[in-house]
């Protein structure tokens, strides 16, 4: 469980902008956002080790560009953007490194899911993860944010820079595909 939130985002923004308190405030950012960012990353890359590395990269990049963060955007939006960018870059790099087609990539993700030991053992949930792996990358991202994180479309729109209408349509298509996946499986 994350540490109790003693300061809201607005106060945290102020502390981040003051050079004397930036480091301390960023420590609070790490404590506050480690979990939501980790799960967002993990659901995209599926492996705990990869998620751990990408989460570290996310915070390092945020820290190195903290002077660019002026507080206009919400702190969480800014961090989610960095995390998503890290995920997509990682997946693209892996595709190139292993010289994978989209079908091959789906197979690789499924094998990662099957090899994952950090799970609670629920087979239905594992199967749902595989169904999600069959979605195109961006649709997977939209589905995860909406279904698992229950993120409002407004915030998703801010993070992904896509209209709410397009996101709703994307989510709807993702649900249909998952439904079909289970129908075909039966």
């Amino acid at each position: 469980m994350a540490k109790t939130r003693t300061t809201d985002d607005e106060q945290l923004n102020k502390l981040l902008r003051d050079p004397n308190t930036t480091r301390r405030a960023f420590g609070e950012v790490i404590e506050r956002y480690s979990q939501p960012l980790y799960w967002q990353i993990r659901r995209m890359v599926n492996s705990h080790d990869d998620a751990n590395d990408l989460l570290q990269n996310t915070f390092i990049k945020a820290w190195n560009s903290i002077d660019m963060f002026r507080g206009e955007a919400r702190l969480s939006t800014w961090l989610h953007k960095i995390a998503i960018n890290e995920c997509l870059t990682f997946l693209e790099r892996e595709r190139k490194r292993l010289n994978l087609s989209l079908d091959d990539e789906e197979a690789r993700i499924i094998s990662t899911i099957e090899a994952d030991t950090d799970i609670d053992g629920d087979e239905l949930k594992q199967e749902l993860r595989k169904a999600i792996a069959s979605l195109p990358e961006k649709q997977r991202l939209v589905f995860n944010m909406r279904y698992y994180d229950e993120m409002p479309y407004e915030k998703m729109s801010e993070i992904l820079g896509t209209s709410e209408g397009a996101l709703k349509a994307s989510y709807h298509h993702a649900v249909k595909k998952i439904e079909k996946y289970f129908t075909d499986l039966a």
Partner: protein
Amino acid sequence: MTDSNKTPSILDRAGHDDGMTVPEGYFEQFAARMKESLPEQPWEKVSADNDETHVMPSRSLWQKVRPYVYMAAMFAGIWLMLNVSTLVGTGGDLPVASPDSGPTIAALVQDGASVYDDYAVDNFDRADLYDDLYASGFDPMSLTY
């Protein structure tokens, strides 16, 4: 939520928990490790340096007098510029060129003797010249042309 009406039963049964877990105490350890591994920022170094230099180090003699030396040099330069331009403009106190001033000027003066004569003849008053000649005992009228 409008999406829930369209959610297939499989999603209802699976629930919103993805079934993934993390090692025990992962997030606490991650936060501690992450905070320690944050690199020092340039502005943090500057801030730290400022804190450490509350007592200014003593300045050397040159550092102390340097501004005054520069200022004196600046005034000297201004004085020189003003005086040189004044002298060149009026010709006032500059030493007059004489045959001794230099070989070039001397040569010019020697070579220009006739020029000097012409100048003298054109400008001397003839009566003054006769007075000088009478005073020296010479009668110019005794000359026959």
